[in-house]
């Protein structure tokens, strides 16, 4: 493989002992990398000197497929990008098209979008939490968080029929309205979740072993984050107050009250705390949205095969659980996009990873990757 020829190994003489750096391949299949991420680590003993990520194992040419797919038919493809927070991916795309074509969305649909999006944020963070604990060796929190996630996925199944790739959002609304009693079930779920949340908190947050493994590990400064284009909880943990729901609000977020947790050091522990707090804030958001849910139409109009968007281009972005997901759509006046580019948070985070794991041990690298929460589906597209 061409990559191997470009790498250099240096050997140093430390007094009498000659040491040599060697390459370790943390391969695409590995119980710790989130998805098919391959990292070539240049190591000096236990410490990582350099990290070269190799991505593309999950590349499916989604952007090229978009050029041959009608706008309204492309929504299922967006599910498969960041398959853990599929609702938000749908929203990112649908919002871009609506902004470009200036399509009105009924208020009930907007609120439903917020409810589904924030519930998906909770589900996504629960998965992240479980995987972080699992990578650090604690198996139990993984099962507890997945139990909570199952309740959310059950609700999603009632609404749209799917547990992971929802295909719920449509251009101009959502695909169907809520079944009967869904709101009550949702409120009961949130109440149950807030009762169980202290358990999840207790088992890790104050645990000496966990704190020792995450505090000070992988600290990134605000400037480095911005330079690499990191967004979302990674950026917020480094001390930068930036959340698209507040800074470039979309949908009905301006009408809902919530807070943005911001960290200080930008280490793994801060990223952990930021995401835990985001879960709480999302619960409050869903409760508010359920309360304010207006009556009316939520289902989007059926799109004809002739649906076209006027010429133009737009870059529109939303705050997914992982960070900023942006869609750059160039339209040539037809029914299919001329070019659709997806800017995903995980792609930038993986490049930031190379900076964050320098001079750390392998065990720390595992923790840092888990705290960045990359999803290869969206970084490879």
């Amino acid at each position, binding site marked *: 493989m061409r990559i191997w020829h470009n790498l250099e190994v240096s050997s140093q003489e430390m007094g009498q002992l000659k040491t040599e750096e060697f390459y*370790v391949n*943390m391969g695409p299949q590995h*119980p*710790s990398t989130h998805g098919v991420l391959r990292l070539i680590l240049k190591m000096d003993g*236990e410490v990582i000197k350099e990290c070269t990520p190799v991505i593309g194992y999950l590349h499916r040419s989604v952007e090229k497929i978009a050029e041959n797919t009608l706008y309204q038919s492309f929504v299922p493809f967006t599910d498969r990008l960041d398959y853990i927070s599929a609702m938000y991916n749908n929203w990112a795309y649908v919002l871009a098209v609506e902004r470009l074509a200036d399509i009105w969305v009924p208020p009930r649909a907007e609120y439903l979008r917020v409810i589904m999006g924030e519930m998906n944020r909770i589900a996504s963070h629960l998965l992240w939490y479980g995987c972080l*604990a*699992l*990578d*650090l*060796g*604690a*198996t*139990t929190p993984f*099962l*507890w968080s997945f*139990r909570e996630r199952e309740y959310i996925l059950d609700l999603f199944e009632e609404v749209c029929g799917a547990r992971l790739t929802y295909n719920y959002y449509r251009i101009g609304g959502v695909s169907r309205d809520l079944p009967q009693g869904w709101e009550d079930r949702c409120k009961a779920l949130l109440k149950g979740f807030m009762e169980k949340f202290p358990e999840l*908190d*207790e*088992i*890790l*947050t*104050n*645990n000496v*072993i*966990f704190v*020792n*493994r995450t505090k000070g590990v992988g600290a990134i400064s605000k400037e480095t984050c911005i330079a690499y284009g990191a967004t979302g909880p990674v950026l917020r943990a480094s*001390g930068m*107050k930036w959340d698209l729901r*507040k800074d470039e609000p979309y949908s009905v977020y301006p009408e809902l*009250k*919530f*807070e*943005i*947790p*911001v*960290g*200080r050091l930008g280490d793994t*522990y*801060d990223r952990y*705390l*930021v995401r*835990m*707090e985001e879960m709480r804030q999302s619960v409050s958001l869903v409760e508010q949205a359920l309360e304010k849910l207006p009556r009316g139409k939520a289902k989007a109009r059926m799109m004809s095969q002739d649906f076209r968007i006027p010429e133009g281009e737009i870059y529109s972005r939303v705050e997914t659980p992982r960070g900023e997901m942006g869609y750059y759509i160039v339209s040539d006046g037809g029914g299919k996009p001329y070019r659709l580019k997806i800017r995903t948070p995980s792609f930038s985070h993986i490049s930031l990873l190379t900076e964050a794991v320098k001079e750390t*041990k*392998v*065990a*720390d690298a*595992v923790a840092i990757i888990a705290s960045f929460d990359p999803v290869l589906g969206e970084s490879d597209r």
Partner: protein
Amino acid sequence: MEYHLFQTYLAPLLDAARSWWDGTGLPLWIYNVVLMFAVSLGLIAPFISINVMGIIWLERKVSGLIQNRMGPMLVSFVRPAKFWTRHPWAAVWTGGYLQTVADSIKLLLKEDVIPARADKWVFISAPFVVFTASLMAYALVPFSDHLLSLKNFEAGFLYILAVTSYAVIGILMAGWSSNNKYSLLGGMRSAAQIISYEVPLVLSLLGVVMWTGSLTMEEIIVKQQQMGWFILYQPLAFLIFLIASVAETNRPPFDIPEAESELVAGYNTEYSGIRFAMFFLAEFANMLLASSVAATLFLGGWSGPSFLPGFVWFMIKVYFLIFLFMWIRWTFPRVRVDHLMEFGWKVLTPLALFNILFTGVEILVNRTFMMWILLGLIVLIGRVRSRSSADKIKETLAYESK
């Protein structure tokens, strides 16, 4: 009760065997060696094996319950009936006990792979060395006042501690002979971990010796029957022994050598099938041994109210400690290698030394509850200084809302 069993059946048998041997005129040492093999293979090895099967089943059930699930349920003689589903807390314990048997059979049927350039005989004998180390130590475990292999062995539990150190050699053999740089690193790491934690392990037991004045297991139990269990007088030593045992047996949170999500897969990477099972058997046998030693030295061994025979009390205490091991395993994340070494040398060893000093002072002034005063003070100070998780989060994160 066992004394009567012993007197009625076993003693005449042994006498008859001995007199038959004397009759043949062969040297006595052969008789002793044969008897030794008979006891270790016929009594102790089955005891270990059956208990390990039970422990593995217990581990899967306990881990299941902690993780909000039921563990193996289907592989049993009789599957739990449907009506049990209304009482899952009870139903959990009625199923899946043949799972370990099924897993062992599966491992027996696996292909025996020895890496091509591995050091063949070292590779083959490494699991046996590790298992033998803990098997030898069972010679001294007092299962009851009459179920012992060796009576009044003066070296006592010092022999146990010495003999369990043997396992390090087996691990290094496994790591080296696999001809795999990751196995070698894993084996060396595991060896470093075990050697480091032996120091606080041994030091923590010195307090018990100081109170008893003797190393023999029987004397320690007799002293506890007079004084009360040593866990009351040596709580710090008990905690140190427990933590050091978790590290010695390579159990989580100290399981870096065996962890799947660490890059270095450990000394038993290249082992498959029954050889791999042997390592696991050795680990559980080690855990059983550590629990037995702790039960004898801190919880009074086989002593207990007479409505249950001594052996039953012993097993109850041992299984309680094993449950503690499992509880610790499924609660905590894994400790990083450098933290592990730091913790062993910089925290446990000084604490163990301090325990010896404190016990000496206690014996001098002949008062025994100073330890509890100390622990009470530590708990109080800890409470005053710790903050709740919510406060910690509020301190760490800055909230911004527009």
